[in-house]
C-alpha cells in the first residue's frame, strides 16, 4: 500500500557523558533507517548523553542553535529523526528534551514535564521541568511528543490526542527491575506494555515507544521498543535487553478506521473535564 510509513526504532546503548560517541551511534542508526526506507527514526530519552548524568548535565547540554543540534539537523536531511538530549535554554535552564527534526529543521521540541524524583530517580535535582504539551503537524500525520515518565500521566496523552495527534512518540530510558512477571521481561517492562496498549486504545492513536538498553552503574535498561496501533495491536517490537534497529511499518489510515469504530475522542467533553478539574483543584487547596 502506497501510504504505508516506516518508522525505525533505534534501540541503542549510549555511552554515559560521551556525546561524540553517541552521535556516531545516531549516524549508524540513521544510515540503517535510510537503507530500510524509514521516514522517521526515533532515539531513546537522553540517548545523546546517557541517563545518569547528575552533575555532568551542564557539560553535555546542547543549545538549539549550537553545534550538536547542527549535527542532528544534518542527519535529519537523510531521515527525519527524534533525538533525546539535554537542552540548555538561553537563561541556562536544563531540560530533558526530545527534538523532532526533518530536512535540516527543527519541527518540534518537547521538554519533559514530569521529572521522576523518587526511588532511584532524581531528575528534578538536575533538570527544569517543561510546561507545555502541544501536538504539531508532521509526517506522516499530526503528532505529539512525550518523554518517558510523561507517558505515565494519561492526561498528557489525552491532551495530545485532543490537540489532534494521531501518533504519540515517547523516547525512554526505562530501567529494568522486578522479577515477578515471567521469564521474558522484568516487571517494569510489563507495566509499560500494559500502559502503551491502554493509551493507544483509549485515545485511538499510534504509540511509538523507544527505550534504550545497556547498563549505567549497575542499572540495566530493558529496551523492548515498540509501535502499537490505534487498535492496541503491536505493529513491531524490538527484543528486550539488547541493541536493535527495528523497523515498524504503519498504515496511518488506521487512526481514522479506529475512530470510526470507537469514537471516544469525538465524545470527549473538554468543558466538563476542565470544569471538574478546576473544582478538584479548588478543593485540593
Amino acid at each position, binding site marked *: 500500500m502506497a501510504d504505508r510509513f516506516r518508522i525505525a526504532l533505534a534501540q541503542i*546503548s549510549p555511552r554515559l557523558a560521551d556525546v561524540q560517541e553517541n552521535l556516531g551511534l545516531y549516524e549508524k542508526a540513521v544510515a540503517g533507517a535510510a537503507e530500510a526506507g524509514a521516514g522517521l527514526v526515533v532515539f531513546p530519552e537522553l540517548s545523546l548523553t546517557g541517563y545518569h548524568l547528575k552533575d555532568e548535565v551542564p557539560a553535555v547540554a546542547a543549545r538549539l542553535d549550537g553545534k550538536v543540534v547542527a549535527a542532528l539537523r544534518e542527519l535529519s536531511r537523510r531521515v527525519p529523526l527524534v533525538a533525546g538530549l539535554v537542552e540548555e535554554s538561553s537563561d541556562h535552564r536544563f531540560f530533558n528534551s526530545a527534538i523532532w527534526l526533518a530536512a535540516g529543521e527543527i519541527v518540534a521540541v518537547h521538554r519533559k514535564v514530569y521529572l521522576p524524583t523518587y526511588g532511584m530517580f532524581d531528575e528534578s535535582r538536575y533538570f527544569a521541568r517543561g510546561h507545555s504539551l502541544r501536538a504539531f503537524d508532521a509526517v506522516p500525520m499530526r503528532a505529539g511528543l512525550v518523554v518517558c515518565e510523561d507517558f505515565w500521566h494519561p492526561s498528557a496523552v489525552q491532551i495530545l490526542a485532543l490537540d489532534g495527534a494521531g501518533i504519540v512518540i515517547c523516547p525512554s530510558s526505562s530501567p529494568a527491575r522486578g522479577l515477578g512477571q515471567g*521469564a521474558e521481561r522484568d516487571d517494569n517492562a510489563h507495566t509499560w506494555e500494559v500502559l502503551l496498549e491502554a493509551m493507544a486504545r483509549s485515545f485511538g492513536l499510534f504509540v511509538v515507544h523507544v527505550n534504550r538498553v545497556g547498563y549505567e552503574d549497575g542499572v540495566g535498561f530493558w529496551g523492548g521498543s515498540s509501535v502499537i496501533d490505534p487498535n492496541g495491536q503491536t505493529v513491531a517490537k524490538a527484543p528486550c535487553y539488547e541493541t536493535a534497529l527495528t523497523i515498524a511499518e504503519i498504515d496511518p489510515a488506521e487512526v481514522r478506521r479506529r475512530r470510526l469504530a470507537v469514537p471516544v475522542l469525538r465524545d470527549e467533553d473538554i468543558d466538563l473535564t476542565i470544569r471538574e478539574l478546576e473544582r478538584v483543584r479548588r478543593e485540593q487547596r
Partner: protein
Amino acid sequence: MSVGTPVVSPRAGAAPALTPGPGTPASPAGPPVNPPLLRRLLVGFLRDEVRKTGAERVVLGLSGGVDSALAAMLAAEALGAANVLAIRMPWRLSSAESLSHADLLAVKAGIEMLTIDISPQIDAYFERFPDADAMRRGNKMARERMTVLYDHSARIGGLVVGTSNKTELLLGYGTLFGDMASAVNPLGDLYKTQVWGLSRALGVPAEIIDKAPSADLAPGQTDEADLGFRYADVDRLLWAMIDLRWGADELVAAGWSRSFVDAVEARVRRSQFKRRLPVIAKVSERTIDRDFRYARDWGL
C-alpha cells in the same frame, strides 16, 4: 519450623533462636527467583560493566560456598571461562570440604584456579596479638583475602568480582573492606534464597547449594547459627520490610514475632555504615558525594 517460599532449604541445623512466630505470617511470600531473567540481567551486567572499564578479565575468591560459586558461573558465561581467575585462599583450619567444593566449581565452570594459603601471614600477625578474639581473626582473614584478590587483579588487569548477597549486605553480615570489597557485584540485589534458586538453575553442583552456609572463619561455624535465624525466614521478612515497605507494626499484625522483627530491623540499621563510603567532614562548598555528584560510570 520453616516458612517462606519453598525454595531449596539448606541442611537443617540447630533450632534458631529467632523464629517468625507461632504460625505462618500472612505477609507476602519471599522474593521471586525467575532464573532465566536473572541470568540475562546479571550476565549482561557483568559483560557491560566490566568491558566498559577497558578490562576483559575478572578475579574472584572461591570459598566453596554458593555465593562465589554462582558469581563464578555468571562471570564465566559473561566474559568467557578463560577470562575468569578464581583463587582459593584457605587458612590452616579452613574446612577440607570448602576446598574440594571450590575445586568442584572451578572444574564445572572451566575456569583457572589458584590456591594461596594465607596461614603464614595470618599466623605471623596473631603471634603478636594472641588474645585476639574470633571476630578479629575472622575479619583479618577476610581482609587478607581482599588484598590478595586486589593484588591479582592488578597482575592480570582484571576487576574483582564481589559475591556479597543482599541478605548479608542488609544484615551487615560481612567484613567491611574484606569480603564486602569489590569492583562489580552481580549478587548484591539478590537475597540468599534467590542465590540458591538461581544457582540450581545454572547448574552449580548440588552439594554446594545444599550444605549449611558458612563463612568458614572457624571450624563448625554456620551462618544461621551466627545470625540466630534461618535465611528462608529472614529473606521473607526482609523482602516484605525492605522491598515491599511493610512497617514493623504491619508485620507483627501479619503474624511475625515482635522479637524477630525488632532484631532484624536493628541489624539493618546498625550496619548502615558498612553500605556507605566513610563520612567526610564538610568544609567546602562542593564536597565529594554530597555536592560533587557523578555516576561511577562517568569516570570511564
